[in-house]
């Protein structure tokens, strides 16, 4: 009984079904075992038994493992049987219902008859040995007896086949998962085609870009978050969105600006605005683009970029140059100041304090002392003193 191996019951290519019979019970030698009601199938290569109640329980024996068969006539209360004598199992036999058995034969009991025909066909197959002429995948073929080299190959090949199946399964799963992506790529391809055609038209300066194409193109770009690229740099243009946003900002920032002496760095603005919004946060890009439009829209704030690159928002009414004069006074009072000291005195952020001092230097009111002690600003005595 230990010659049986578990199988899916599916026939291989080149393997054909010869006959099948329901109601067959298997005996291990003379002993009854749990496999009491199944369908027995004979193929050109194997003898397969499938449990009638549990179709997943399915096992097989290779015909090449059969030494000989004999009939056993029915008796009173006993069904007709076929006795199948078997070769010893190969050392690398695949798993089956029994690990070991003291018997080297099994009995097939035909409780629903059909034994005569089955026996006839089985004998025929044994004689013809069609399995030798029609090779199926190697794991089905075993040897008569143990032959070390070949047996090993069979086992490994079996494992390889399993791995191959697993890989195919994984592949299938992945392709299913990426179905959406391939749909996206189809769309992207359309867009690429469109932009190529527009680019070519622009390059050749031939043919008008149709209204329709322009609209489609713009809508693609907007959906990706790019404002109209042609006019991105110029103030006063830009999408409706940025214009609306600019107006909104003017409203939000009026109060905070006045509190902070009329000037705020753009990073402070970004934090303030996003904190206030809570949801639908602004991207830095959107903020900058909106701020660029403030002056053009004649709103009471404006964006200002210092030489150092620092960007600030100031009230229109705020005159940084005037603040410089007061900065000079403060510095003169104290003799000299660093940006940090100045910031603390005036109650400004260090960043803005530094910008103010630098502006004062640029205007010639202050001069600098740069040493290991740090950067200090002094009133510009070079100019004021002879």
């Amino acid at each position, binding site marked *: 009984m230990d010659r049986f191996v578990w199988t899916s019951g599916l026939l291989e290519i080149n393997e054909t079904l010869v006959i099948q019979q329901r109601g067959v019970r298997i005996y291990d030698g003379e002993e009854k075992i749990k496999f009491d009601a199944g369908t027995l199938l004979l193929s050109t290569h194997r003898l397969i038994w499938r449990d009638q109640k549990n179709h997943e329980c399915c096992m097989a024996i290779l015909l090449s493992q059969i030494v000989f068969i004999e009939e056993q006539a029915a008796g009173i209360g006993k069904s007709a049987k076929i006795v199948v004598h078997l070769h010893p199992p190969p050392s690398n036999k695949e798993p089956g219902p029994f690990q070991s058995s003291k018997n080297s034969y099994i009995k097939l009991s035909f409780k629903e008859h059909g034994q005569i025909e089955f026996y006839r066909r089985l004998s025929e197959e044994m004689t013809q040995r069609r399995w030798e002429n029609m090779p199926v995948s190697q794991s089905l073929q075993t040897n008569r007896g143990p032959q070390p080299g070949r047996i090993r190959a069979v086992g490994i090949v079996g494992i390889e086949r399993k791995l191959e199946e697993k890989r195919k399964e994984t592949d299938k799963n992945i392709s299913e998962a990426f179905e959406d992506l391939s749909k996206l790529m189809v769309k992207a391809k359309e867009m690429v085609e469109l932009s190529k055609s527009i680019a070519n038209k622009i390059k050749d300066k031939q043919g008008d870009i149709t209204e329709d194409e322009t609209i489609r193109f713009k809508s693609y770009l907007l959906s990706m978050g790019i404002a109209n690229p042609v006019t991105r740099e110029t103030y006063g243009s830009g999408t409706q969105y940025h214009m609306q946003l600019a107006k909104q900002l003017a409203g939000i920032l009026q109060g905070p600006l006045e509190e902070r002496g009329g000037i705020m760095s753009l990073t402070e603005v970004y934090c303030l605005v996003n904190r206030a919004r809570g949801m639908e946060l602004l991207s830095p890009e959107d903020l900058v683009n909106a701020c660029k439009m403030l002056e053009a829209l004649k709103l009471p704030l404006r964006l200002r970029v210092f030489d150092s690159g620092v960007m600030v928002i100031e009230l229109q009414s705020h005159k940084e140059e005037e603040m410089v004069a007061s900065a000079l006074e403060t510095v003169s009072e104290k003799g000299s100041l660093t940006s940090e000291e100045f910031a603390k005195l005036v109650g400004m952020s260090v960043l803005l304090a530094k910008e103010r001092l630098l502006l004062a230097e*640029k205007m*010639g009111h202050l*001069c*600098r*002392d740069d*040493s290991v002690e740090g950067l*200090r600003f*002094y009133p*510009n005595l070079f*100019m004021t003193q002879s």
Partner: protein
Amino acid sequence: MAMSFEWPWQYRFPPFFTLQPNVDTRQKQLAAWCSLVLSFCRLHKQSSMTVMEAQESPLFNNVKLQRKLPVESIQVVLEELRKKGNLEWLDKNKSSFLIMWRRPEEWGKLIYQWVSRSGQNNSVFTLYELTNGEDTEDEALQPCPAHHSRWAKLEASSESKLPD
């Protein structure tokens, strides 16, 4: 003649030792440096110097104030002096230089004036007499190092036919 050197107000002003980024401010700063260098060298009778010496000299290194002019800025000052005609490099590497607190043509003029005044046109003088003679003692000609005189005489002679 040895007078204690009076440092100008800038010498005690820390920003003096930082090259100013503002162009107008820098102009004033460099002008002050140039005149300081010249008066310093004149007093100390120093007509030549190496850049290394300059860095450590009290001229560019105010120990009390704890400020020194960085070497790149010293180079800028020296270049200004050269442009004005008060400095000449003694070597290709610009490691040592000649300081002329009076430019050659200024010397030339002075010599000519002195010579005219003492009515000694068309006589021959040695260099030594010019620089160390009694007649010239109190005159501005006095602290005139030899090689300056050479220059000066060339200038003077080109101006008014003084024989060499």
